């Protein structure tokens, strides 16, 4: 029984969620191999070889893997799959795009957003925006799984480097061409990996107020900035800041919800945070039902006060 973890990387370094996925792989039992599929990604492969518990790194290098296009990555992994009992991806935009495609090519089901390993074939995963937890048993020979990173600790990187084996690339898919990307320049910590998250809701009223109030607060706490769907819909914050059922799942040490009422879809994305603070002027806001510390106040007064109290 061997588990293959598909590393997420930018050809230079590994994305944080990969380390959490290796921990989930360890819980599935058996050996762990990590696949780095990229272009000129030897540095990422070398980094993977240092992760505690990894027995072997497979490295595929091909120009069509430079940008992680799902169709191409799937084409390259497909042939390797038969040797594995489990194939794990992080439940990120990339993992969620590739894992189902691979599973269907293998004619096996896929388990999404796995939060707990019960046994090698039985897992827990949230459904209905986390309002229920399903215990599911995969009946297929190969278990293709996406792992919710916030539910697993990051694996350590303190082992002597294991072997890195080059794998001959397969034919490219050919019908999909990467044209470019726009990644927002952001000096803040990554939303899903930050220890503190400051999130804003519709009550902030405008994109200007959203940034004017939350940016300095985030600066003080070295926090990532998140948003409710309502704030994203209103155009106050970019889509990839959205915390919730169909956005990002976060579990920081401290989550500060500013002017967020707390719809169930939002709670689904942040209720595993260690400490939750809610600032809202509506005493009936559902966010208070999950908050460790609730401050019933006008956010336009409370947030500047909080910023100066932290100075």
């Amino acid at each position, binding site marked *: 029984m061997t588990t293959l973890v598909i590393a997420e990387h930018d050809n230079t370094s590994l994305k944080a969620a990969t380390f959490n996925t290796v921990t989930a792989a360890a819980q599935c039992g058996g050996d762990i191999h990590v696949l780095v599929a990229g272009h000129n990604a030897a540095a990422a492969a070398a980094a993977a070889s240092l992760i505690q518990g990894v027995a072997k790194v497979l490295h595929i290098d091909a120009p069509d893997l430079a940008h992680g296009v799902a169709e191409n990555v799937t084409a390259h992994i497909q042939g390797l799959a038969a040797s594995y009992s489990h194939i794990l991806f992080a439940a990120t935009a990339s993992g969620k795009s590739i894992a189902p495609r691979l599973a269907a090519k293998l004619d096996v089901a896929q388990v999404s957003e796995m939060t707990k390993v019960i046994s090698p074939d039985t897992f827990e995963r949230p459904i209905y*925006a986390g*309002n229920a937890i399903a215990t599911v048993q995969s009946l297929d020979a190969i278990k293709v799984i996406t792992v919710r990173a916030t539910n697993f600790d990051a694996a350590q990187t303190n082992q002597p480097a294991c072997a890195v084996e080059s794998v001959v690339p397969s034919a490219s898919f050919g019908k999909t061409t990467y044209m470019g990307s726009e990644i927002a320049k952001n000096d803040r910590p990554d939303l899903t990996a930050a220890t503190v998250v400051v999130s804003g809701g519709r009550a902030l009223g405008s994109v200007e107020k959203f940034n004017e109030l939350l940016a300095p607060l985030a600066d003080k706490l070295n926090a990532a900035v998140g948003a409710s769907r309502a704030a994203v819909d209103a155009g106050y914050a970019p889509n990839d800041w959205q915390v919730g059922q169909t956005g990002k799942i976060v579990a920081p040490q401290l989550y500060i919800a500013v002017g967020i009422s707390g719809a169930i879809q939002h709670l689904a994305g942040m209720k595993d945070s260690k400490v939750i603070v809610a600032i809202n002027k509506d005493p009936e806001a559902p966010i208070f039902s999950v908050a460790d510390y609730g401050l019933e106040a006008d956010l336009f007064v409370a947030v500047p006060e909080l910023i100066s109290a932290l100075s």
Partner: protein
Amino acid sequence: MKALVAVKRVVDYNVKVRVKSDNTGVDTANVKMSMNPFDEIAIEEAVRLKEKGIITEIVAVSCGVSQCQETLRTALAIGADRAILVESAEDLQPLAVAKLLKALVDKEQPSLILLGKQAIDDDSNQTGQMLAALADLPQVTCASKVEISAGKATMTREIDGGTETLEVSLPAVLTADLRLNEPRYVTLPNIMKAKKKPLEIVKPEDLGVDVTPRIKTLKVSEPPQRSAGIKVPDVATLVAKLKTEAKVI
């Protein structure tokens, strides 16, 4: 060119589901059901492409129980031309639905297949990708912008940290994300018109698809409940609590 749009009947967005006391699932009896919100965005996009003259016919498909006909009528009211229900009382999992859709894609030969990125009941986010795999087509998941010209589509998709743009040859599969469009409200005249549009019912056997579940749900339980903490009177108290009690700043 033809578009095929898959729509799912799910528990309404605003309903807070309850886990059944015997832990076999969630209670969906007497609960409001609606079209999955992302599927609504998918059908809206197809209708907009038809209004631009790019698409000529929209076929809406749903897989599930007989009541999915209501969901299909909604799709027809938004602007689909005809509908197909693949009727089954089985627990239809994403792989099975993808196989059913693949059979219909073979039959209907659409140039564009649109789905929501994720259903809000099982939160799988799989069916579009699986269909693309089975039909060996390009896939653009979490699409936020679609442009079609000369047998190709240029689409922008939401990724971690921003967006990326892909060019795919048609036919292709896209899954709709939130920012793709804002679905229109269905008007009464269109609801009336939808009642007269053709709705065909087929069975998985007719399509030669085995829909046996590959994943067994052993148990459905309540998530750990988070209890409410305390209300603090002012910012100074909040900061003091975070420093000395919670020790997170």
